[in-house]
């Protein structure tokens, strides 16, 4: 029985993958027509990578870190420095000139992304040594602090010839095509999923459940915390690099604490401890933000101007929705569960029943149902 169902799972997954590739192909061909939607999807995919990496650290290993923006900044700047075409560099660094050390450094984007990830990972390895022995609240604040320090360093005038200070970096080449964008994002997420389901993933979960017991099971606390931190930061750095390629121009303001908060809220919405949740949450939040733009423009129904609808209202609605999730749906959409075809099947099958329940509740017919159940 098990063999058949896993066979079925594999077929369904393959089918979904083909549909997915088909959609990308369609979008690639009609790029100019759907450029708005495509940019939303690309941003969602990139945020999904960072969200999953944050979940790896927070949801699976239990380390509450708020340093994501800093590592993304490192990844973004390294990628930018290594990929801006050499001939364009003079115009980018027009104010202060470019440091000779990096003037000619150039490499293909995929290599730049790997180096970006490694740079972020190396920074994490260093930061981890003092920071990982702190208790959860202090860990959050310390990583937040480091994120701001990184940002200050990047914006410092002393490093103008490398980071271009407050002018930021532009003319970053974009993705050659959509396959690359989504392919890279999917690859990153896939690798993280493999890690989570491996023996090391189990070790991380043990750490989250009970540190003392994990130690008693032979897991060196610092080594495994550091491992999780470094790996998570690697992918966060790659995510930052992907973001740089998506945005084409970056500056230190892009990587403020708000970016970390955005990712955190995606993780919370999707469910701490669920990769599926983080991916779903990323698309929901990014698309939702755009859809909520509806609230930003004045609205009149039948000639009557509805008050409240003006610029900024969308973010207020968004914040309220997020507070609602935090207060009432603490476990997020997926809780700590992952996607399974069976689960999806059960969900679809239960929709008529859920609808009927809601209708009955509204029309007050529920009482009848209860009496029925008592008689059984």
């Amino acid at each position, binding site marked *: 029985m098990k063999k058949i169902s896993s066979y079925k799972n594999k077929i369904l997954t393959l089918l979904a993958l083909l549909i997915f590739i088909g959609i990308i192909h369609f979008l690639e061909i009609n790029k100019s027509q759907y450029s708005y939607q495509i940019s939303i999807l690309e941003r969602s995919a990139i945020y999904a990578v960072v969200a999953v990496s944050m979940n790896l650290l927070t949801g699976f290993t239990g380390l509450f870190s708020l340093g994501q923006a800093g590592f993304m900044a490192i990844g973004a700047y390294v990628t930018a420095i290594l990929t801006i075409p050499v001939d364009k560099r003079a115009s980018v660094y027009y104010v202060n000139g470019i440091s000779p050390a990096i003037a000619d450094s150039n490499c293909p984007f995929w290599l730049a992304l790997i180096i970006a990830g490694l740079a972020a990972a190396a920074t994490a390895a260093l930061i981890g040594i*003092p920071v990982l022995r702190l208790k959860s609240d202090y860990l959050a604040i310390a990583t937040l602090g480091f994120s701001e320090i990184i940002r200050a360093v990047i914006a410092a005038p002393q490093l103008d010839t490398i980071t271009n200070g407050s002018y930021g970096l532009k003319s970053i080449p974009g993705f050659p095509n959509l396959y690359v964008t989504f392919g890279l994002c999917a690859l990153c997420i896939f690798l993280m999923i493999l890690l989570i389901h491996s023996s090391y993933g189990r070790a991380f979960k043990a750490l989250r459940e009970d540190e003392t017991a994990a130690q008693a099971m032979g897991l060196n606390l610092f080594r495994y915390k550091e491992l999780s931190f470094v790996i998570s930061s690697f992918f966060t750095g790659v995510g930052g690099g992907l973001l740089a390629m998506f945005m084409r121009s970056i500056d230190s303001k892009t990587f403020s604490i708000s970016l970390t908060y955005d990712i955190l809220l995606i993780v919370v919405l999707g469910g701490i401890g669920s990769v599926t949740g983080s991916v779903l949450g990323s698309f929901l939040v990014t698309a939702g933000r755009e859809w909520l733009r509806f609230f930003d423009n004045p609205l009149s129904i039948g000639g009557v101007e509805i008050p409240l609808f003006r610029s900024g209202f969308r973010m207020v609605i968004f914040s309220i929705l997020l507070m609602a999730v935090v207060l009432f749906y603490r476990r997020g959409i997926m809780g700590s569960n992952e996607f399974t075809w069976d689960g999806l099947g059960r969900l679809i099958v239960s929709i008529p029943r859920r609808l009927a329940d809601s209708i009955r509740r509204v029309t007050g017919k529920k009482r009848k149902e209860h009496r029925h159940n008592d008689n059984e």
Partner: protein
Amino acid sequence: MSLTTFLQHCLTGISLGGAYALIAIGYTLVYGILRLINFAHGDIFMMAGYFMIFAMSSFPWFIAVPVVLLATVLLGIVIEKVAYRPLRTAPRMSAMISAIGVSYLLQNLATYLFTALPKGYPEIPFLKKIFRIGGLSASLVTFLTPVLTLIIVYVLMVLINKTKIGMAMRAVSRDYDTAALMGIKINHVITFTFAVGSLLAAVGSLLYFTDRMTVFPFSGSLPGLKCFVAAVFGGIGSIPGAVIGGFILGLGETALVAMGYSTFSDAFTFVLLIIILLIKPTGLFGEKITDKV
């Protein structure tokens, strides 16, 4: 640098430090009782700034100031009731995330209501009057801030140590569950703590923005974070610690700006944080707690 200039900078530093100290106390009070980092505290401080702008446009200053204080206290109490109380039994991470959510909401609300453009902070005329003492010249508010801070801290210490509610606060921060079992009305104590913290934030905001002259929706987030660091530096849960932390922070920042490293003045705060977390994580005046296995 001449002595006068040096003293001038010291004065600026102490004044800034005083404002920071008042806000830091708010953090330390809430953390002491709830073990919660109230990320929204800095934004309450920011909202107090906006309240002042609107109050001053309708009332003379001696009515506007109490209105602002009251409004800020109400804001703090409402936030506690709506966003933190329901999560009191939830894991700590949830409460922290809620605080981040409230901070986010306040910032977006301010952007929506008041636009992202900086708004001019109203002047209370006599506060901006320049005084000269010796060779030092500064506005009254600059002289007033540290003095006011110390008075407020003294009153607070008397409150905490000599009154019944103060004892209740100390009991709850020591051992939440036992305090509840002893019949202390936890909700009242917590509400009171938030009220005091918000009041201090409002006063701090008055002193801070009078010198700054503009308010914008994000003017609370960075000072808020810095003041939290000041509280951690001094020992979270300790009021004298928060005060000392605030002054050290104010002086350090002013020193950096005076020496020409203004871009690092923000990062300075975090370097301070990292240092204290490495050397003495419980802060200058904090207590060590051992975990029982």
